[in-house]
């Protein structure tokens, strides 16, 4: 807004060079145009396109014969989709809770003037730099019952030790949780540590002078002031959970059977290998709905907060 008024002011004073000036006025718009086109076509246009496809009977190729909500009805009558949704519920909530717990705990612990803090931080965060495919490959090896942790424990003398979650349809979703927590919890730690370092030091000193213990200071003063960080972490983690695709592909390939499918894997399989474009698009729209339900309130409050700061 401010720059806008500045523009019109300078236009008046230099109206002699109006031709050059109008080019200068247009330059920002010209420069922004490619990204605008990209956003309008490849984000919003495609979103609408997928929405349209989800109301058609498209199978192997897109067709534009509309069938109303049929695909959504078929989707929610599809056992595999319901398994994927249930898995997302279990995986998502456990993943988010454990990541938040570990991340906050590690951040607070690291904040206690720890020796070698830098090295520890580096170790906690490095999985975040790695592809989920690599993470999946590594944990597939660790969790497989014939050669992995189960065998290690048996060889160490725990002969009845059993850890076969990877091949057990009822437990396999927890394998996804373990691997995903391993990858992403360090990220939550980094977020909160940055937040902790930003807390006003005088506030903490004042609390100590009033006789508050370290524990009380954290519980009553420091953590409540990190509420925005908490919400950011929550949004980012749920976003990761809903979009999870690679990890399943590498760790379990959806198996055994389709016991560890997540919505993203369902969408991919139905759209690209099972030639059910209509239903695949419907499942993508449901995923979009989930993300928007989390994101819109968050972005709204963020942008409003920014305006208030000004």
């Amino acid at each position, binding site marked *: 807004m*401010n*720059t*806008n008024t*500045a523009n019109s002011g300078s236009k008046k004073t230099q109206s002699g060079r109006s031709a050059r000036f109008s080019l200068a006025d247009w330059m*920002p718009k010209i*420069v*922004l145009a490619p*990204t*605008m086109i*990209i*956003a309008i076509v*490849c*984000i919003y246009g*495609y*979103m609408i*396109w*997928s929405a349209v496809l989800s109301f058609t009977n498209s199978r192997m190729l897109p067709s534009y014969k509309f069938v109303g909500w049929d695909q959504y009805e078929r989707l929610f009558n599809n056992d595999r989709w319901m398994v994927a949704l249930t898995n997302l519920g279990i995986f998502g909530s456990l993943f988010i809770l454990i990541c938040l717990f*570990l991340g906050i*705990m590690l951040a607070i612990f690291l904040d*206690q003037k720890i020796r070698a803090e830098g090295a520890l931080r*580096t*170790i906690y*965060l*490095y999985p975040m*730099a*790695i*592809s989920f*495919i*690599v*993470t*999946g*490959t*590594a944990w*597939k*090896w*660790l969790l497989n019952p014939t*050669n992995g*942790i189960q065998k*290690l424990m048996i060889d160490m003398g725990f002969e009845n030790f059993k850890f076969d979650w990877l091949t057990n349809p009822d437990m396999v979703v927890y394998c996804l949780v373990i691997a995903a927590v*391993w990858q992403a919890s360090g*990220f939550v730690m*980094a*977020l909160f540590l940055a*937040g902790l370092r930003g807390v006003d030091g005088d506030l903490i000193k004042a609390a100590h002078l009033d006789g508050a213990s370290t524990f009380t200071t954290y519980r009553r003063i420091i953590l409540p002031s990190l509420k*925005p960080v908490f919400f950011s972490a929550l949004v980012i983690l749920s976003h990761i959970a809903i*979009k999870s695709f*690679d990890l399943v592909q*590498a760790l379990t390939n959806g198996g055994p059977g389709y016991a560890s499918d997540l919505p*993203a894997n369902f*969408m*991919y399989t139905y759209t*690209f290998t099972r030639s059910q474009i209509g239903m695949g*698009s419907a*499942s*993508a729209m449901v*995923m*979009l709905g989930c*993300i928007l339900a989390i*994101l819109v309130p968050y*972005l709204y409050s963020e942008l409003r907060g920014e305006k208030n700061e000004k």
Partner: protein
Amino acid sequence: MKNNPVARKTSGVSKVLRIALYTVLLAMAFFYLMPLVIMLITSLKDSEEVRNGTLLSLPAYLHFDSWTKAWSGACTGSTCTGISPYFLNSFKIVIPAVAISTLLGAINGYVISLWKFRGSDLFFAALLLGCFIPFQVVLLPMAQTLGWLGIASSTTGLVFVHVVYGVAFTTLFFRNFYQSIPGELVKAARLDGAGFFTIFYRIILPVSTPIIVVTVIWQFTQIWNDFLFGVAFSGFDSQPVTVALNNLVNTSFGGKEYNVDMAAAIIAALPTIVVYVLAGKYFVRGLTAGAVKG
């Protein structure tokens, strides 16, 4: 004097607490490091040792055979080229995609924060959504578009896709960074007759080094680690390394060679790990950008 015994007591308690603290921190360090260490150990064993040993048993001596095999001999499907061609594919995708998306992001951020016009804020808000949509929503339309453009199943196509969906993030990074540059600076330069690009080139770019580093590292990591676009849009010859690794690991026929799998996984992870070790500070800044303000 009276306080002394109390003080000593609390210091004893705090000593115990501190030991507990370090124990937890070290245990967690072990949890994060263990998979990498086990991958490394496994990749250095021969197949006999892999089958008969446990995760933690060390190889009798170091075998680098599985590394050579993973790099240039391992089979995915019917071809036995190892993952080296796909490793190069990843670079062919990552380098142009990072360069283009960073450049676009820089100039977008410059406009959105210093050359605001009516609707530019709205545009930025609309673009933000691009950072967060589940890409499943755009997969099929994008596949069709790539076909029409004649760049389906090629590394060029993947560069295009990564630029399109990376530019929202890069714009966000640069916009947040340029927000702190005072508008008076630009105003003064304009009064001196400097144009749009001169100001960008002479005044803005020279102070942008930190955010360029953050953006390049962020984009490099994101694109290198991408799997979804890679598997959906690549052809047989243009697969990025993540897709090739997944194919290698999930190849079901023939004996499973876990040592080769592990070597291949480490090779695929190496570039981003190296970047992380060398420039971790900037990597963290990229991760927390947008999430923690200020």
